[in-house]
């Protein structure tokens, strides 16, 4: 064993790997003992033991999917890991953390959710691009930089929002004063005089917890599946110009996130 000793990092084997806990900030280890986990495709980096990965459409999983998976058109992004052993999860070297829900609910940006126990039910949030977990159990989520927990009332930057628990859905907040009047109009049209880039926030009120990441780098959006084409269903008809602007696309200074249009300027 001393053969490999030296300045190298810690060596892990199935005995020393933690059970359902972080190995470091970026890698999470899940222990399976004949149990099942839902897993987003491609987030498993290595495993010991015998673990099967089956698509959601696998016939044997019908019952499980019926009770804990309510995003039918999202199904092709998820697999069920089943067997015994320890598997390592990671995502693009982002921070990963596990969270315990106890008879609660939590809504999370779909790209940030890596895995969850089937004791939780996954549902598509009516906020486009978000998923809601309901029930009791553990899930693993990724964020760019560590997650901080905040309590409402709070206004948060759209790109920093990871998710929220127990509180009602957020609404948009605009710095209205900044955008109106002659000077505001000029600023909006030309970008001169400075757009701080923070004229638009999500506002949370009520009791609950808001999860923020400590950077404004978004994870790639995962398709959450189409919603039924029905009147009254957000995002069903119109092309989504939803709450989160196209991730990663920088706004031109004069556009201010298309605010001028919303204020009729």
């Amino acid at each position, binding site marked *: 064993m001393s053969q490999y000793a030296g300045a*190298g*990092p810690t*060596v892990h*084997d199935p005995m020393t790997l933690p059970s359902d806990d972080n190995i470091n900030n970026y890698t999470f280890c899940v222990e399976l003992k004949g149990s099942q986990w839902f897993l987003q495709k*491609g987030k*498993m980096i*290595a495993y010991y033991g015998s673990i099967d990965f089956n698509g959601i459409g696998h016939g044997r999983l019908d019952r499980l999917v019926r009770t804990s998976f309510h995003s039918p058109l999202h199904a*092709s992004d998820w697999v069920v890991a089943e067997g015994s052993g320890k598997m390592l999860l990671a995502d693009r070297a982002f921070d990963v953390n596990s969270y315990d829900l106890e008879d609660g609910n939590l809504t999370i940006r779909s790209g940030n959710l890596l895995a969850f126990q089937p004791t939780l039910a996954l549902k598509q949030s009516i906020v486009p691009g978000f998923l809601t977990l309901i029930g009791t159990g553990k899930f693993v989520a990724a964020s760019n930089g560590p997650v901080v927990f905040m309590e409402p009332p709070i206004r948060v930057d759209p790109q920093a929002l990871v998710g929220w628990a127990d509180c009602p859905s957020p609404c948009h907040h605009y710095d209205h004063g900044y955008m109106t009047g002659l000077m505001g109009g000029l600023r909006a049209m030309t970008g001169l005089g400075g757009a701080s880039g923070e004229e638009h926030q999500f506002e949370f009120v009520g009791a609950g917890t808001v999860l923020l990441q400590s950077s404004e780098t978004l994870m790639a959006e995962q398709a959450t599946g189409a919603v039924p084409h029905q009147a009254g269903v957000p995002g069903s008809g119109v092309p989504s110009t939803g709450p989160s602007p196209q991730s990663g696309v920088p706004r031109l200074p004069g556009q201010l996130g298309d605010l001028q249009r919303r204020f009729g300027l």
Partner: protein
Amino acid sequence: MGAAGGYLRSVAMFRLQGSKVLAVEMTGDAVKAKNGSMVAYDGQMAFKKLSGGGEGIRGMVTRRITGEQMTVMEVRGQGTCWFADRASEINLVGLQGDKLYVESSNLLATDAGLRTGTTFTGLRGASQGNGLFTTTVEGHGQAAITSDGPAVVLRVSPQFPLSVDPGAYIAHQGNLRQSFQSGVTFRTLMGEGGGEAFQIRFEGDGLVYVQPSERNTIAGDV
């Protein structure tokens, strides 16, 4: 260089400064490092580009043919030299006569006393999108490899074989057999795949380095 003659067998000392910068202390000896990876040095250093990885004509030709090209420089001198590569995490590997298999793009620096070469990896290499060949490092000394996020080192023993996603694999050392596992079934073709269709299975005795991030591979979408 004559001044260093007093050191019969001086070995460059590798140490990490933070997790993204490698500091090497040298007393007249040399290290091989990725071209252009030096960020700072003090003392006296000479940088010499080694064509074709410094393995002679044969090595150079082999690397050309196999696509495992490395542009390597030899750094020799007295003092401390710091290396870094695109802010990626650096992992130190100590070699005591065993062989390290690593992708040339992940190899940052090696002790000049270590031999580097090229080896055939077969399907595993292809599944990583890195070609069919990989770089080997052999001998006694230290090497530094880079990874996207800090690497996790996993021990493989006869009773605990390990399966690794090709996109997360960066290196392995020791006496390991690797085989390529494919879970491609009718379901995969129907778009109902398990998402982890290709894996490399390691059996034997040794260490495997994985990074908490996946390169884009042909297996990634299946």
